[in-house]
């Protein structure tokens, strides 16, 4: 009698190849990238990089040229790799006008009731708006606690240069995959956060406020370092569709969680529907520490997104809560990865995915429990809801358990909207569209309540928007 009939599926196959591919370097593969050493040197010069950063970029470029395009996930053929330089230097994007913003995004703004001035701001085509002011106010408040919250470029020129050098792309090395290497070569913009030992940051830091900060682009790097016994909630992403002329996003997030610390990282990604979102996020957690990921993926044409947690310290924990909503023309491949590398560690993954109107929403996970991680626990649960028979949702879990002293569980459910529930709601005067949106909202609710309030509201609006016009 539940609103969504669910059916348990037994998941047996373990496909390791997906996660091993990163180590293979196909030297024979070459792509005429159009991205030259000169261009990378130019970027570095413009940014006034320290020498080590310039060398890091050049080294990354070399790696980029050697690595193959990943071929294990959704197709990225629409991405023009031959002309990668246009993604790297999206100058044209900055001068784009409101008139060039696609109709569907304009309509979304209309329906969300966002004022005209703000709309162009959110679309990345307009002038600054009040967010800068808000950002600066927040920064002042946390500065008093000794917290550093700034853009990565300026941090590189200050007293934290050494700390950045010791951490930058150590968690996600350029050798990780082709787009990590590209990121290493051309990264630009992003945030740097340092929380000293024993400090609990009470207000969540939101990179949203910095959306229009100079240099924020699609290769932004977020570096978060939280010392011992501290707490931070970092909220990243854009709560409204962001339009960019260039349609590749290869950002990188690295989070270092110190001993006994807790970091919560929340994000809603709602990129425009021409975007290839190839984002890499990773955290390492010290003894007794916790990383919590809350992740919502709505936008983009194609996404590869699997935040990874390395449970390096004894009794460290990770929790991942995610939701993915794929509509027409979208292929969203999302999930989570975890490496249990110390005894007594635990991971808990809960995801929901929704596919409608021919969209594809896949859940991919990797759980590795090493020999050293005796007494560890892992539970992975994913539920998907398909709104019509043209949509698809697959579950691709991988597990590699190298100790017999581990407790591992996996559960997958796939369901459809119950016609009985729709009829029930319609008998109370709700339109078919509203009835279905309500049911989908109910399915998403356990995840939505983990999101910061304004994002939960946003997600609800998005679900209603996505459901509009979905009734044949």
């Amino acid at each position, binding site marked *: *009698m*539940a*609103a969504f009939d669910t059916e348990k599926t037994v998941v047996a196959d373990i496909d390791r190849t997906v996660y091993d591919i990163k180590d293979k370097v196909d030297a024979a593969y070459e792509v005429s990238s159009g991205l030259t050493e000169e261009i990378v040197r130019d970027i570095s010069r413009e940014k006034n990089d320290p020498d080590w950063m310039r060398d890091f970029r050049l080294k990354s470029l070399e790696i980029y040229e050697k690595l193959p395009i990943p071929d294990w996930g959704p197709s990225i053929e629409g991405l023009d790799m031959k002309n990668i330089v246009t993604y790297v230097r999206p100058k044209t994007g900055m001068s784009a006008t409101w008139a060039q913003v696609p109709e569907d995004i304009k309509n979304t703004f209309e329906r969300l009731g966002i004022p005209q001035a703000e709309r162009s701001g959110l679309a990345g085509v307009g002038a600054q708006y009040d967010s800068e002011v808000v950002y600066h106010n927040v920064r002042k408040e946390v500065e008093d606690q000794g917290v550093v919250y700034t853009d990565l470029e300026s941090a590189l020129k200050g007293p934290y240069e050494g700390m950045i050098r010791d951490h930058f792309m150590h968690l996600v090395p350029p050798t990780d995959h082709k787009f990590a290497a590209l990121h290493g070569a051309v990264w630009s913009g992003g945030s740097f956060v340092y929380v000293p030992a024993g400090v609990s940051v009470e207000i969540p830091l939101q990179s949203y406020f910095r959306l229009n900060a100079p240099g924020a682009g699609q290769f932004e790097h977020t570096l978060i370092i939280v010392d011992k016994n501290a707490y931070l909630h970092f909220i990243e992403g854009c709560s409204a569709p962001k339009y960019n002329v260039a349609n590749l996003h290869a950002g990188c997030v690295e989070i270092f969680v110190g001993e006994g610390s807790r970091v919560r990282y929340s994000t809603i990604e709602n990129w425009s529907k021409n975007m290839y979102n190839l984002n890499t996020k990773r955290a390492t957690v010290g003894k007794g520490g916790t990383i919590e990921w809350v992740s919502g993926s709505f936008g983009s044409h194609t996404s590869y997104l699997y935040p990874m947690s390395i449970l390096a310290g004894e009794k460290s924990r990770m929790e991942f809560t995610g939701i993915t909503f794929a509509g027409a023309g979208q292929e969203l491949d999302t999930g989570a990865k975890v490496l249990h590398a110390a005894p007594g560690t635990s991971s808990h993954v809960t995801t929901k995915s929704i596919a409608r109107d021919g969209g594809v929403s896949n859940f991919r996970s990797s759980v590795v429990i090493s020999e050293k991680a005796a007494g560890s626990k892992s539970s992975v649960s994913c539920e998907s809801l398909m709104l019509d028979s043209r949509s698809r949702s697959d579950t691709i879990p991988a597990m590699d358990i190298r100790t017999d002293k581990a407790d591992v569980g996996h559960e997958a459910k796939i369901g459809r909207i*119950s*016609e*009985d*529930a729709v*009829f*029930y*709601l*319609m*008998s*109370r*005067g*709700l*339109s*078919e569209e*509203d*009835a279905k949106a*309500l*049911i989908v*909202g*109910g*399915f*998403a*609710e356990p995840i939505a309540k983990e999101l910061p309030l304004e994002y939960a509201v946003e997600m609800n609006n998005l679900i209603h928007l996505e459901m509009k016009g979905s009734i044949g």
Partner: protein
Amino acid sequence: MSTPLLKIEGLHVSVDEKEILHGVDLEIGAGQVHVLMGPNGTGKSTLVSAVMGDPRFTVTEGRIYFKGEDVTEAKTDERARMGMFLSFQAPQEIPGITLENFIRTACGAVSGKQPKLFAFRRELREQMARLGLDESYAERYLNVGFSGGEKKKSEILQLLMMKPALALLDETDSGLDVDAVRTVTEGIKAWHNAENSLLIITHNAKILEGLDVDHVHVLSKGLIVRQGGAELVREITEGGFASVKEED
């Protein structure tokens, strides 16, 4: 007689190509209480579901008029907005929306304007108290984890708040203990007046106590086989369906 509130003419209804109702006629006037009885599996639920517009049932012949309008092709939500209400035998559980928010949404949907928050809340609390539903249920998800009896009370609460012109009650009393049946009947009586009408499906006379029954229809194998007044209820509860069919 003025236009009946509900008029069913020669209704044939099929599910998956199988015909369940073979030509049912029924008329309900404003302010009337009708009772629909009959053995299990004869199409009583099919009839009220089809009247409400359940898409799983196909009307192959005949018409349904509500308030003088032909609603045979109307969508379920349109019928609801015109003032039709169905109390389900097995109400659905809908996580993600609280009972209170749902009823407020439903009232807004059928009336065309969102009820004022405080007045609505006060009335809801009063009606919940009448039905013996604890206030905390207002904050719970719609029917989620409710017992069978609580689900039926949730249906009657919706009836009391939405104030439809016609209520179709599909075995609202089934699975309820004596006290709960009495509470539910009290709720129905509180809603019922000279303008609105009821069609009650029941196997039990208990729910009818205190209600002025105008007509009783006996459905058997997809056809109305007997019609009469309140005395038919006693006849059936005492002698079973065999006794009434013989007279047909």
